[in-house]
């Protein structure tokens, strides 16, 4: 007999909550994305220096926010999994990782595209971009360790240890990279922050942030459901072998 199905792979309540959230999150995503993009691309004024290219910010900055906050959520979820041994928490952290990595990657690509008109080159070792790049490495390590164990519960614990060590390190890495940047970069280079933020810019930024959050929730619902069903399938297979 496989491990108690009810306890480990049949979190019915969780699935029903996910099922209830999913359509609303999807709807909200569409609404917020349309509003945010409209505000960002048509309503917000163009920058007097950068022209229309400043609008990349509305895609770039919230993606960077998401990259960081999803890593933090993963750490919290993993801590819950490690301390209270709640199996859904591990699955939940695992489901978040690729989404977080995708947002981080998006912020890097849009950062490079923004860099071209701003600095005349696709990549500068700007403190923010460099930190995001390191964050992407952390995501890749986290996903790699999940793949490296055959035993699910071992993988979950190993990944949790890694993400917790990582999350403690993130502020240190961020600080060191910022500090390294001020040490090496001449002050004349513009930073990603651009001009002082005006409300006509801030509003679309926040709307886009909310849209990304809703998008994250939507994808998360799908992924976590797939993970739970995948676990259940494995359990059924194990049962079949043993009978």
């Amino acid at each position: 007999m496989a491990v108690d199905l009810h306890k480990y792979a049949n979190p019915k309540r969780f699935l029903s909550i996910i099922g209830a959230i999913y359509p609303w999150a999807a709807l909200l995503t569409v609404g917020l994305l349309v509003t945010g993009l409209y505000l960002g691309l048509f309503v917000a004024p163009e920058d007097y220096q950068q022209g229309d290219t400043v609008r990349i910010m509305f895609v770039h900055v919230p993606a960077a926010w998401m990259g960081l906050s999803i890593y933090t959520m993963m750490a919290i979820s993993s801590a819950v999994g490690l301390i209270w041994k709640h199996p859904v928490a591990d699955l939940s952290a695992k489901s978040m990782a690729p989404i977080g990595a995708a947002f981080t990657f998006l912020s890097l690509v849009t950062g490079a595209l923004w860099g071209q008109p701003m600095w005349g080159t696709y990549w500068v070792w700007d403190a923010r971009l460099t930190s995001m790049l390191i964050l992407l490495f952390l995501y890749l390590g986290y996903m790699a360790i999940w793949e490296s164990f055959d035993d699910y519960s071992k993988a979950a614990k190993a990944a949790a240890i890694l993400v917790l060590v990582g999350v403690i390190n993130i502020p240190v890495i961020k600080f060191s990279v910022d500090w390294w940047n001020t040490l090496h970069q001449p002050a004349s280079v513009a930073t990603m922050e651009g001009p002082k933020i005006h409300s006509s810019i801030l509003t679309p930024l926040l709307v886009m942030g909310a849209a990304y959050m809703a998008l994250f929730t939507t994808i998360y619902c799908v992924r976590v459901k797939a993970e739970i069903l995948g676990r259940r399938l494995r359990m059924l297979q194990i049962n079949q072998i043993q009978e």
Partner: protein
Amino acid sequence: MSLAAHDLSCIRQERQIFSNLSFTLSKGELLWVKGRNGAGKSSLLRIMAQLLSSPTGRIEWAGQDISEDPSEYLQNIRYIGHQDGLKSVFTPRENLQFWIDYLGTGAIKPALSALELDAIADSPVRILSAGQKKRTQLAKLLAVPAPVWVLDEPVSSLDVHFIDLFRDILKGHIASGGMALLATHQDLGIAGTRILNLDQLVVEGGE
């Protein structure tokens, strides 16, 4: 002093190997853990040695739950596993000496001679045969004494002479009030052995 296991279970590779396993072991008792391959013999011994945790139940040593003070419990346990735990560049003497220093007290000479290791005590472990390594591993039981022996296939790769020798050592340990948990394929034929059959989850025999 006695060892009691209540309601242990084991999950390996997401499979339930056994559950609801309880037994007790008192002074001067030998419990032979039997079962087919994959029944969880090694896992049970590893749970008793605290290398594996049981998701349910508890282990009591001298009436006290060992989770309250695991290191106090572990001082009373010697675990012999499948891997020999010997450093190949050290000699048997150096290997044993390390464990004596690390674990606190012990004596090396009687252990070496009891397992007839004197002749090879100063050759590096890497040139020893499998049987000689096994004997060096077993010598640790005598070099650093402890009341509970947890033995996972202790006589594998030993020839008839040394199996007899080890049987006598084990008998001596039991007779002097020690306890042992033993997982072997062959019957060592020690009188009064109790049997824990993992296939049926029953404890049989005894006096």
